């Protein structure tokens, strides 16, 4: 075909042909010159550039013949190159110059190698016969075309010049060099003078060869390595680096010491290699015998079972990884197979028509978000299983499965399944722990300024309170009525008030300033006989007073002066104050012994630590200072309810002294910075300590000297704490204006710990300044407590 087209073309462009012929002739001559006579202008003059031909010499030849009549100085090199490429070259001029006879001749001339005359002959002959068709017109019947498969035309590189077999000289007058198959102009590459001028103006770039790439018309560039390789090839050297064509011989089997390791021996082959094996013969005979006897059946048909097994194996390899799974014990690594529901009708390839979605259903399904779909396929009907198309989502499914395997945790985490409620200690419901105070039922108002101290009378009918106004007031806790009142001082506050713990007397001891007053309330609060007894008790000591003092003087000089027991003025006696005890310190705390004869006063802010704690005997009007030197600042003290023990609290320590043996029994380390109050459980085995550093400490005296429990519930300092005498209750009073009531049950059994349950926060007192509630006392029987507020109110909580 190509040949024919070329032939037709030639006919068409008949006119400019002679010029082309001429030029071609010249060029061909030039080429011949270059080839044969080593002459010619060496425009390039570079042996390297010649080697660029090695791939596409035919095109290069073509171009070179067109423009640059190349000639080489190193003729022998060129010759060698030519020789190497003979196979390629001998065809090239032939096809190139197919169009012209001169070209053909030239090619014939130029090659000493064999020339095929066949294509020339063919092209000369007419490849068609003319016959007459049905209408009588001439009809051309074309013969078979020999495609000449090994011609250059057919396997010319695709990226080459496609202007066809037109000589470039035809286009000398034009800016282009021809047309491509689509009729578009192919631009003429820059060349000749333009290139020369360019070369004059610039340096020769790296890898410049001066050759033109025949495929693109661009200048051909070769790297250094490539040039080196070319150079080596042309000199018949080994092209690669680091290859030694003449290595030294390695003497494997010769030389000294090598004889012993020779693996071969010259011993002759043993005989057994050439005779039949007796052992094998024996075994064969055995089998033969077995066959003869019928023990082995050589061509036994395969049993049905075996065949089925084999077939099943062959038939289908289903990848059910869980098919043969055994029930396994629960193990974190074992994940049981998910139970899938059996397939339904809608999953069939040919489902019953009622399972097929109608238009609306299909639309709805398609519009739904992929995640919201109730199933990930639409039932569809196929006439036969073979018409079922491939699963469209296959890749996606597999991908998601892989994602699952990759991202999903393989290890089953055993979740720590603990109900947080169960971690809490089992506390009884406060409702079960009734009664306890819940509301304020009475407010006793009357004190001006703070109420500092409170005390219930032993029968629980009255509450005495003392405050900053220097008054002691007695209240009816159920109605809030003030039933009696006495002013002890105009300037000084009443720091402590305590009823004598005896039901057959009615005596209040009140500390005001440096004096302790003993009061018998008037207003018929107590029966006449009680009153009489109370007076007796108070005056009983006057007989002893002198003797006691004298005995003391004998032992020590300063002690009798430490206290003075005396009768107050008649006016005071008339008002109810029947006895005074003057100390030289300011007692802040007064605590009665259970026998109601002894009481202790504590004067914390004294310089003389020896007189800070005094134990007084009412019946003898005797005052003793049990501690010559007290470590720390005395804060409060109390008597043990059953044992002859005395508990002293200094600012940071609690010490328990045995009064009979007069020695230190125990020392507690509550770890508090400043103890405010202590309360001993009626059983005497538990001690509550309230501190100014917001803590309430529960000490089990039998357990050790550190707190059994620390309760931190208040936001401000705790001022006071009190155990109920009968009920398992205790309460504390704090500067944050609240009282907190706890259930604190103490069991006689020493193995069982005491239970402490917070019950109620009692709010109501107003915080004045930084002070809230200053004191709390319990009713001797009922679950009622009374609190003294810095706001001047006494509140009864029931």
């Amino acid at each position, binding site marked *: 075909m190509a040949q024919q087209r070329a032939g037709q073309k030639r006919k068409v462009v008949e006119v400019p042909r002679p010029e082309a012929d001429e030029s071609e002739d010249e060029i061909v001559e030039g080429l011949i010159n270059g080839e044969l006579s080593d002459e010619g202008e060496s425009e390039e003059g570079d042996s390297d550039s010649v080697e660029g031909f090695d791939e596409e010499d035919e095109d290069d030849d073509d171009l070179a013949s067109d423009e640059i009549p190349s000639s080489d100085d190193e003729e022998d090199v060129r010759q060698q190159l030519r020789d190497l490429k003979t196979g390629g070259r001998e065809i090239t001029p032939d096809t190139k110059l197919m169009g012209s006879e001169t070209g053909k001749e030239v090619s014939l001339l130029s090659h000493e190698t064999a020339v095929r005359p066949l294509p020339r002959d063919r092209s000369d002959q007419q490849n068609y016969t003319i016959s007459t068709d049905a209408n009588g017109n001439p009809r051309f019947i074309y013969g078979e075309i020999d495609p000449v498969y090994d011609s250059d035309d057919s396997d010319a590189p695709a990226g080459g010049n496609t202007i066809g077999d037109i000589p470039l000289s035809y286009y000398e007058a034009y800016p282009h060099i021809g047309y491509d198959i689509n009729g578009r102009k192919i631009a003429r590459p820059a060349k000749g003078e333009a290139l020369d001028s360019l070369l004059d103006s610039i340096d020769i770039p790296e890898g410049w060869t001066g050759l033109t790439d025949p495929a693109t018309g661009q200048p051909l560039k070769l790297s250094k390595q490539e040039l080196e390789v070319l150079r080596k090839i042309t000199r018949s050297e080994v092209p690669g680096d680091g290859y030694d064509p003449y290595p030294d011989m390695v003497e494997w089997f010769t030389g000294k010491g090598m004889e012993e390791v020779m693996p071969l021996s010259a011993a002759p082959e043993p005989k057994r290699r050439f005779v039949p094996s007796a052992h094998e013969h024996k075994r064969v005979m055995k089998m033969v015998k077995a066959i003869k006897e019928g023990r082995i059946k050589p061509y036994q048909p395969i049993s049905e079972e075996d065949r089925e097994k084999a077939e099943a194996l062959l038939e289908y390899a289903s990848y059910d990884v869980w098919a043969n799974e055994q029930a396994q014990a629960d193990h974190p690594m074992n994940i049981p197979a998910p139970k899938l529901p059996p397939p339904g009708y809608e999953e069939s390839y040919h489902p019953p028509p009622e399972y097929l979605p109608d238009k609306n259903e299909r639309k709805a399904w398609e519009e739904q978000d992929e995640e919201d779909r109730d199933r990930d396929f639409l039932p569809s009907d196929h006439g036969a299983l073979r018409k079922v198309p491939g699963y469209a989502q296959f890749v996606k499914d597999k991908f998601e499965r892989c994602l699952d395997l990759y991202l999903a945790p393989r290890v089953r985490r055993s979740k720590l399944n603990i109900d947080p409620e169960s971690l809490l200690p089992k506390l009884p419901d406060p409702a079960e722990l009734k009664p306890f105070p819940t509301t304020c039922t009475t407010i006793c108002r009357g004190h001006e300024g703070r109420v500092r101290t409170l005390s219930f009378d032993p029968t629980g009918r009255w509450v005495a309170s003392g405050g900053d106004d220097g008054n002691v007031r007695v209240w009816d806790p*159920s109605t809030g009525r003030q039933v009696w009142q006495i002013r002890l001082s105009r300037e000084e506050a009443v720091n402590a008030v305590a009823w004598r713990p005896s039901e057959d007397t009615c005596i209040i001891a009140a500390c005001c300033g440096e004096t302790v007053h003993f009061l018998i309330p008037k207003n018929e609060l107590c029966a006449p006989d009680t009153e009489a007894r109370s007076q007796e008790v108070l005056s009983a000591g006057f007989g002893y007073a002198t003797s006691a003092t004298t005995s003391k003087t004998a032992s020590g000089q300063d002690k009798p002066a430490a206290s003075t027991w005396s009768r107050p003025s008649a006016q005071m006696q008339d008002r109810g104050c029947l006895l005074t005890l003057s100390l030289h310190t300011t007692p802040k705390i007064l605590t009665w012994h259970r026998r109601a004869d002894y009481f202790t006063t504590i004067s914390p802010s004294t310089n003389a630590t020896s007189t800070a704690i005094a134990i007084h005997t009412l019946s003898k009007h005797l005052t003793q200072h049990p501690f010559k030197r007290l470590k720390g600042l005395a804060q409060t003290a109390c008597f043990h309810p059953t044992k002859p023990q005395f508990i002293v609290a200094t600012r940071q320590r609690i010490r328990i002294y045995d009064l009979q043996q007069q020695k230190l029994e125990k020392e507690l380390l509550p770890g508090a910075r400043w103890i405010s109050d202590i309360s001993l459980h009626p059983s005497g085995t538990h001690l509550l300590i309230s501190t100014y550093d917001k803590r309430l400490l529960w000490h089990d005296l039998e357990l050790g000297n550190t707190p059994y429990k620390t309760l931190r519930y208040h936001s401000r300092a705790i001022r006071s704490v009190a155990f109920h005498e009968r009920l398992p209750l205790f309460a504390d009073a704090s500067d944050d204006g609240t009282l907190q009531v706890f259930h604190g049950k103490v069991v006689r059994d020493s193995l069982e710990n005491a239970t402490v349950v917070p019950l109620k926060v009692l709010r109501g007192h107003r915080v004045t300044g930084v002070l809230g509630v200053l004191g709390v006392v319990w009713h001797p*029987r009922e679950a009622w407590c009374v609190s003294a507020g810095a706001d001047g109110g006494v509140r009864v909580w029931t």
Partner: protein
Amino acid sequence: MTDVSAMQKQSQVRIHLHTRSGDIELPQDTGPILVSTELKRYQLSTLVNRLLETEQPVPLEFLINGQFLRTSLDEFLTRNGISAETTLSVEYVKALIPPLYVASYEHDDWVSSVDVLSASSQAAAWAGNRYDGSTQRVLSGSYDGVLRIWNTSSEVVATGSGHTSSIKAARYVSPTQIASSGMDRTLRLWKCDETTLTPTLELYGHKASIDGLAAHAPSSRILSASADHTVGVWSTKKAEAPEASEELVPNAKRRKLSNTKPVTQRGPLSILPGHQSQVTDVCFDEKDATVGYSASMDHSVKTWDLTTATCVDTRTTAQSLLSICHLPKSSLIATGTSARHITLIDPRASATNVSAMTLRGHANFVSSLARDPMSSHQLASGSHDGTCRVWDIRSVRSEAMDRVGEAVYVIERESAKGRRPIAGEGVKVFDVCWNREIGIVSAGEDKQLQINKASS
């Protein structure tokens, strides 16, 4: 459709009417009646009045399952989840008319005690013909130790001062005799006429404040509750009473100072020990005057046989008891507790439960109780929370542990002006008395004696 809904709307329920009061009993048992569930109290009341054929319609209340009907029957059934197909047992009672504020009598100090003399009062009943019933008097005892008698136009008719300390209890024994007691440990009898109040007898025997009194004129007995843990039995007759013990009578010196005519002093018939703590209130059994009941802070109610001066029975509750009242018809004792409720105690030996019923609603100590003179199902209570509450013991519902009743009406203190101060500060009610003519009279910390009456 409309017909069906109309039918549904007019659905009917079967009710069975009955009552416990004899005067409004139906002539014959009607059996179950079909009534529309649309009916409310008023229509039901009209219906029953028609059945009763009364000339003057009596306003009635209806109790279903211990609850007063306040809505339509339909709503009631819905709310309580009762099927309309069951036969409802409907008890009808005479309507309790809300007591409205009438007047306040101003005092100088807290008023601790109050009693009423009128035609229907107990004292008048005991006096019989000797009292014409024309004069209505209100007696008040105050913390300032003065006994006052008021007429109904809020004027003090007579005052009696003799108590050296606060009066805690005062009662009419008869229209001419008054008993009073107080923190001065004495019980005083007064003779009263139109304008004067003269002390007739001073009774000594208690060693502490006498907080409660109960009088029974026919047997001329007075019961006293004292803080010295005892109950005293006294006679109103000078001749009957023994001499007072010397120890308890205050010395003559003070008497001379007081510069008044000496009053006869007598002692108790008996002093009944047994309580572990203060006795707060006493009452007679209204059927049998030889039986007395006492309530104490030691949580117990004791039944006393007064003739033999022995304790017959002790019922222990869980709270301190502050007041007591006998309900003769239901044989119950109502006690006001410090735990802010009223416990109804069955004093009979056969009773298994100490508490037959609990009336809840007060917010503070229940300091006094008074029975409705017209009915034995209703009572009024005064509390330290500053309210008086009116209860109907037929209105009751069962809870987990107990039968609980709620107040029918709440009477606020007029002086509080609608406020309810914390802890009843300033408005505590100390005593309450319910009289048919005068109404509910209550006294308290606000120094007022307040009268509320149902307007009918």
